[in-house]
């Protein structure tokens, strides 16, 4: 049966807390607890379901704890499971009541059905109550030795749960060495995998205080352990394979023979349909070959196809995770992916977070042979209805232009953007033309002709407006009406909301003054006066500075404001290569998606 529909709303102060329902449940549970009537289990099931459904939607049903425990004396496994779920949820906040459950859970841990032994042991360890840990040690010890592998897998994770409730109890009971033994000997691969997970967590946490734990943690990446796990790799589930491969990526082989052996062994993992397995394998390959330049490059070639296949199969979310990894590889070695640029073309229906990554990749792989096609494609996106992507595309064109391939054609395209008469396109293109002029002053003539025809009234975005004003100042000798445009902009000083624009305006007027003094003198006075009266500290200070500079010596002022300029050769990269390297070290982790290293963000307390 379904929980009542009105109860699905998340509880809010205006809604009933479900108190009435809970006391109802309480009395009904009580009636059933002692009954041994036939069909009683079915009625119990319905009631238990109700309790669980309230729990799910956030109604506090801890009040029926006692009754639930009373009802749990049953051989019906479905009932037992619901009861375990309930107990696990509320034991932590009701430690006294939790004690009530210990009895029946301990009894169930000795049941003849391994299913029930396992379930009871899992619930027992999930109580998360510190003063009950003494009751865990015995059943856990038995569980680890159980002849049923299901019980052992549960027990191994149980040890880890115990460690988190009370680390000393876990260590004193000598559980970690037992797990180590199981890891290296158990026939069941999931038991082995769970031992590995548990030991990694325990020893990483212990390592800060214990030398021995630190040594043990290192021993996990020793040759015998790694080889043992690798030899069993195909027995493991795909998830456990990821776990093992993550460990292997940390292993440092002695010589290149070892490296090739491992790579040959794992070669077919690259054909796995599970993206996580493939990425873990790639991490191993990349890390193993880091010092072998040629082989490392071959690895890039080898992993290209599988990565591209994963990107285009599966859900958009999975494909995004893989694409993020492809992205950092492309950024590290763009030349290897130069011929694959068509794979980075954006598709109509892709979410913008995917398109953004692709645009960055397209920018990175542009070279002599493909720039024309890439820029043509990007220009299509610039006319796109998706405005943020249209903007990014124009920026991408600009970045490619700054990389110096086929600048001629690109400048033409950029100038065409200015003529498209879409305000956001004009805005982005103006910013780019400004950057281009700083790098290629030789293009000023062509650019200025087009920029001069843009009406400053059509440019509203601060960055674009500032760029336009910068060009007006810098090239005022080539733009006939520069002083007059600056004049009208100065007249609207009060209406200009952006301080950045006002700062640029001050400087542009100064520059223009030195180039065309008679026409600019009046504007300069107005601009300085407006600047001095400006409420914004930076604008005010700059106006004051120019004012005093002019008072002091006009030719010095000219040298300060209009010095001979050198073309910028390289613009500063936003991300240092050191950080890129460290992100690469953390391949197949969130660092890649966030493009941040663990220590920079709050993610991660251990690896």
């Amino acid at each position: 049966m379904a929980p009542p529909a009105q109860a699905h709303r998340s509880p809010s102060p205006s809604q009933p807390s479900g108190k009435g329902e809970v006391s109802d449940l309480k009395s009904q549970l009580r009636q059933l607890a002692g009954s041994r009537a036939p069909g009683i289990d079915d009625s119990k099931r319905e009631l238990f379901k109700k309790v669980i459904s309230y729990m799910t939607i956030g109604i506090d049903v801890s009040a029926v704890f006692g009754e639930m425990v009373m009802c749990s004396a049953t051989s019906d496994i479905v009932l037992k499971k619901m009861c375990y779920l309930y107990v696990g949820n509320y034991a932590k906040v009701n430690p006294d009541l939790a004690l009530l459950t210990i009895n029946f859970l301990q009894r169930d841990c000795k049941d003849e059905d391994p299913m029930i032994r396992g379930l009871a042991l899992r619930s027992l360890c999930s109580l998360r109550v510190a003063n009950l840990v003494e009751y865990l040690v015995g059943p856990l010890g038995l569980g680890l030795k159980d002849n049923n592998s299901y019980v052992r897998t549960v027990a191994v994770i149980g040890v880890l749960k115990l460690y988190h409730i009370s680390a000393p109890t876990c260590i004193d009971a000598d559980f970690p060495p037992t797990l180590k033994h199981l890891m290296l000997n158990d026939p069941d691969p999931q038991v082995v995998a769970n031992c590995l997970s548990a030991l990694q967590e325990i020893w990483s946490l212990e390592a800060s205080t214990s030398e021995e734990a630190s040594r043990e943690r290192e021993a996990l990446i020793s040759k015998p352990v790694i080889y043992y796990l690798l030899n069993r790799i195909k027995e493991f589930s795909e998830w456990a394979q990821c776990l093992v491969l993550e460990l292997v990526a940390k292993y440092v082989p002695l010589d290149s023979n070892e490296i090739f052996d491992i790579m040959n062994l794992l070669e077919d993992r690259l054909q796995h349909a599970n993206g996580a397995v493939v990425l873990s394998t790639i991490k191993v390959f990349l890390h193993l070959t880091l010092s072998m330049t040629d082989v490392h490059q071959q690895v890039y070639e080898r992993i290209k196809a599988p990565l591209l296949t994963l990107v285009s199969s599966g859900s958009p979310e999975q494909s995004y995770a893989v694409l993020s990894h492809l992205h950092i590889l492309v950024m590290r070695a763009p030349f290897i992916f130069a011929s694959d640029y068509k794979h980075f073309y954006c598709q109509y229906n892709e979410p913008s977070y995917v398109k953004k990554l692709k645009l960055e990749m397209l920018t990175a792989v542009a070279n002599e042979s493909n720039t024309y096609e890439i820029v043509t494609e990007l220009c299509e996106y610039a006319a796109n209805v998706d405005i943020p992507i249209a903007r990014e595309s124009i920026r991408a064109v600009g970045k490619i232009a700054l990389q110096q391939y086929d600048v001629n054609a690109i400048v033409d395209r950029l100038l065409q953007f200015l003529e498209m008469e879409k305000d956001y396109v004009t805005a982005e293109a103006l910013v780019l033309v400004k950057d281009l002029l700083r790098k290629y002053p030789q293009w000023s003539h062509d650019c200025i002709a087009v920029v001069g025809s843009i009406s400053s009234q059509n440019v509203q975005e601060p960055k674009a407006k500032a760029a336009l004003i910068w060009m007006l100042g810098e090239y005022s000798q080539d733009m006939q009406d520069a002083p007059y445009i600056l004049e009208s902009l100065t007249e609207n000083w009060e209406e200009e909301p952006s301080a950045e624009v006002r700062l640029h305006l001050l400087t542009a007027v100064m520059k223009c003054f030195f180039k065309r003094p008679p026409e600019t003198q009046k504007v300069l006075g107005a601009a300085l006066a407006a600047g001095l009266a400006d409420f914004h500290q930076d604008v005010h200070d700059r106006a004051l500075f120019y004012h005093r500079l002019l008072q002091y010596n006009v030719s010095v002022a000219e040298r300060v404001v209009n010095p001979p300029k050198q073309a910028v050769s390289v613009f500063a990269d936003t991300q240092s290569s050191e950080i890129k390297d460290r992100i690469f070290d953390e391949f197949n982790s969130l660092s890649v998606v966030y493009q941040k290293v663990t220590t920079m963000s709050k993610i991660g307390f251990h690896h």
Partner: protein
Amino acid sequence: MISQFFVLSQRGDNIVFRDYRGEVQKGSAEIFFRKVKFWKDDGEEEAPPVFNVDGVNYFHVKVVGLLFVATTRVNVSPSLVLELLQRIARVIKDYLGVLNEDSLRKNFVLVYELLDEVIDFGYVQTTSTEVLKSYVFNEPIVVDAVRLQPLSPAAIFMQGTKRMPGTAVTKSVVANEPGGRKREEIFVDIIEKISVTFSSSGYILTSEIDGTIQMKSYLTGNPEIRLALNDDLLIGKGGRSIYDYRSSTGSGAVVLDDCNFHESVRLDSFDVDRTLSLVPPDGEFPVMNYRMTQEFKPPFRINTLVEEAGALKAEVIIKISAEFSASITANTIVVEMPLPKYTTRVSFGLEPGAVGQRTDFKEANRRLEWGLKKIVGGSEHTLRAKLTFSQESHGNITKEVGPVNMTFTIPMYNASKLQVKYLQIAKKSSTYNPYRWVRYVTQANSYVARI
């Protein structure tokens, strides 16, 4: 290692919520939902599948309108968690037959039972429907599939064709049939998603086929299966295939760029006779994914003409030609085209005698929409639209419209020509002859014609 798992409805209600490690606060579902709903970051309208709020990492995948979410504080593999979320959805679907809000709500106890076995203390234990069967005891309450929204990919076979046994793909792998007996059958679906971009002059700029051979087995006793593909199938553009001395063009051979396989697939004789052998586990799974950029004949040609027709007016003519066999019918076709933002009115003209077609001008995002219920192979359809503008266009109207985007489904058609030549089931007895369904379908992924 994950801390919590939960499923939220479209409205943000918790349908199931499981806390595995108690490291992340209880209100995480609300924090997550608010963040996703009001996502606005750096021009992105849609929240990415992974993000971090106050040190908690949130992962989510959307499945049939539901949000499957996991949280963790650890720097885990995003691929692993997203893959896992997708897999959990699939396991639940295997059990419930139909996955949607209603079926989840009716079966939440069963779902909890599954979740307890899939993950323990944040570590994945198993996602195999097969293995889970022995641990899970609740019987699914099967919801009525008819009144439910169809979900892909199973549902694509249910549209407009009687050859397909519609209900079978929404059948639970554990529930018994009403008659008590299970029907022995196996489905093999070849699902291809095609992406094509045409230039303004009709040339193909880029094209790609992303295909999956999907299997769903209801066979008892897990017999071994052999699946034979085209024997001249080539894999890898030179270098990796043993056939690479042959010329790949002109021979008519199917050349895949790359492919990958499900864990259960054995490739012992794949290099020799292009045969896959496997013992299919219960439930639905992809046997093989493949990708192809070899040229292929696109199923549709799109011709678009945009002309100014006096001041403040323009005319758009879109012609769709179906270039496939007349025995095949495409369905649920939608053609879309962005119009200039100063468009105020659109009047449509369909061809005489048009049936099952609809037209719409979506004012909110200035988009023309043309829907066709079906298109028979070999036919052509034309739409005329007269646009009225509120301001004059700046000379070049073609820069203000398009591109034309098309979505469609074509059952029993595959663009790659990859085929399952035969599907052999290891025989238990001479009378054992289960139903086998091999079905093909092609869908548009991104089918775009520039103007």
